[in-house]
């Protein structure tokens, strides 16, 4: 955290710098606190509601009821932490995408990358076409592969026009429709059982979370974050437009390629294990931008944290909305996310994007 606060001197410029640093730190820390509460609440909610205090004791390793210990560590915590990891990955990939494409509608969901993953998953479920991996991971592997294919496709098609932001967005929209069409085609020929399985996958679900899956996402995040840290200023400069960024010394094309690789890894691994979850990748960066602006040193971590908070709270809601049943998480994010988003768009500062 200290690396996010800047050297200051006591004059108006220094004070302004200090103010921005303080604000960044405050937003990040308070989001982190909300996130921790969200995890505890998420781990406490389920068919049997556990006392939050007992959950906290179990999480922190203090001696507690062995049943609570078992439920928390083997069932609840993987789901709660998965919500955070997936939310962070989606929030981060959405933030990078909105920055490099300079477009408020960009996210891996709106630009066809999640749709690509959905098509990959459908191929396994409906036709049994998969990579040579253990059965348990066949859907995940195919979803990741096709997220990568979609990402590469966006860059390949959009790159034909000098990889401008507009070209890439158009390519993304085209691929969204293509993959949705292909998925619909598969659903048309699918047997009723596999159709049900496909639809359930597309709704998204955290319930099949396990520790190894969680570590896979954490590993991808751990690789991506230092890589991003190197590019924060370049990405911030890109917000001023390609011409200006390149005048400031950014290799715009290389930065976009690097960012696309990161986006495809983050989205791929996130949707591979939990299915397509919309809206987090779109909304989290908007909330982060509203709170601390687009200095990417604050914007990227805040988008990740905000995505984590959103998905964590959605996970709690999915378990409490209808007693005894678990609502698909993808439906919850849309049902809660959309009104929230409309509120931001309508009520906040006019020129906030």
């Amino acid at each position, binding site marked *: 955290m200290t*690396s*996010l*606060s*800047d*050297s*200051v*001197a006591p*004059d*108006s*410029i*220094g004070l*302004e*710098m200090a*103010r*921005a640093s303080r604000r960044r730190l405050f937003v990040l820390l308070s989001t982190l606190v909300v996130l921790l509460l969200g995890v505890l609440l998420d781990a406490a909610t389920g068919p049997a509601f556990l006392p939050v205090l007992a959950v906290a004791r179990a999480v922190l390793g203090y001696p507690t009821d062995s049943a609570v210990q078992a439920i928390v560590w083997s069932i609840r915590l993987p789901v709660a932490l998965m919500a955070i990891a997936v939310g962070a990955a989606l929030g981060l990939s959405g933030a990078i995408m909105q920055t490099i494409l*300079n477009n408020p509608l960009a996210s891996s969901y709106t630009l066809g990358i999640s749709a690509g993953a959905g098509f990959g998953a459908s191929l396994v479920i409906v036709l049994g076409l998969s990579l040579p991996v253990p059965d348990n991971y066949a859907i995940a592997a195919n979803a990741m592969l096709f997220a990568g294919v979609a990402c590469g496709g966006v860059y390949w098609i959009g790159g034909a026009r000098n990889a401008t932001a507009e070209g890439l967005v158009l390519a993304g929209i085209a691929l969204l429709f293509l993959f949705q069409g292909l998925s619909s085609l598969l659903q048309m020929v699918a047997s009723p059982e596999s159709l049900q399985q496909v639809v359930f996958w597309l709704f998204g679900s955290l319930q099949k979370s396990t520790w190894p899956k969680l570590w896979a996402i954490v590993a991808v995040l751990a690789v991506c974050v230092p890589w991003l*840290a190197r590019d*924060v*200023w*370049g990405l*911030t*400069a890109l*917000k*001023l*437009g390609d*011409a*200006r960024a*390149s*005048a*400031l*010394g*950014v290799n715009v094309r290389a930065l976009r390629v690097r960012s696309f690789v990161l986006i495809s890894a983050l989205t791929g691994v996130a949707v591979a294990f939990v299915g397509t979850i919309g809206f987090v990748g779109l909304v989290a960066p908007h909330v982060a*931008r509203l709170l601390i*602006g*687009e*200095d990417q*040193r604050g914007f990227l971590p805040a988008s990740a944290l905000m995505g984590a908070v959103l998905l964590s709270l959605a996970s709690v809601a999915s378990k409490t909305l209808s007693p005894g049943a678990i609502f698909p998480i993808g439906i919850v994010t849309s049902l809660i996310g959309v009104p929230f988003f409309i509120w931001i768009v309508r009520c906040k500062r006019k*020129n*906030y*994007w």
Partner: protein
Amino acid sequence: MNISVQSLSVAYGAHTVLQQISLQAHAGRVLGIVGPNGSGKSTLVKAVAGQVAAARGQVLFDGSAVRPAALGYMPQDQQTQAALSVLEVVLLGRLRQLRLKVQADDLNAVRQVLHRLGLAALAGRDVRELSGGQRQMVFLAQALVAEPQVLLLDEPISALDICHQLDVLQVVREMTLQQGLTTLLVLHDLNAAARFCDDVALLQNGQLLACGSPAQVLTVAHVARAFGVEAEALCCLDGTGVLVPKRALRSGLQTDDAIKKVAISAY
């Protein structure tokens, strides 16, 4: 640092924008680039900045084709959607040396340039909330903060009131003289060019019509030929000359003949 533009041609697709331009810019001098809309002024500056590739010819910096890192370029477009403060935008001017944590010398450079341009009070403002003129000053600050040896400014005063126009031109001139910068300045205002530039290059249709001292280049004859405008040269009380545009010669039928007439009568 001396810049030598040698037989430079630039094309956008099949359309040639610059043809065989050769000129020199010297350290400690301001070279003004003037000409009508679409004459290739911005493209010339972009080519020097390395933002567009040359179809033919080359740009040399002290005899070398390698562009110096200390090159401040301010593009013409001042629009932005970035949710960034003035301070953050100016800081980005030092992108090449910025670390994750902003260092004291980077902040000092920003502080100096903001004070010099009178922007210190705006430091915390969102750039999207500024007026076009204020934003133009902010982007100028961004170009200056990297302490460049070469300064390329594309219409830096187009959105400014007269006070800020003079302010900016004075600062640019002072810095050029004091720090030995090589400055290229694209301007529409011919009188400003006459006043603040050591040399002037006049472009028309992608070709260099004239290059030299303001007195040699900014003549009634050249203005008639390049812009199709009849102008009158007046002498001010302080001895400086002023060009006053009178009427456009390119309306209706009276085109080439009228231009020739003005050009001939001027000689």
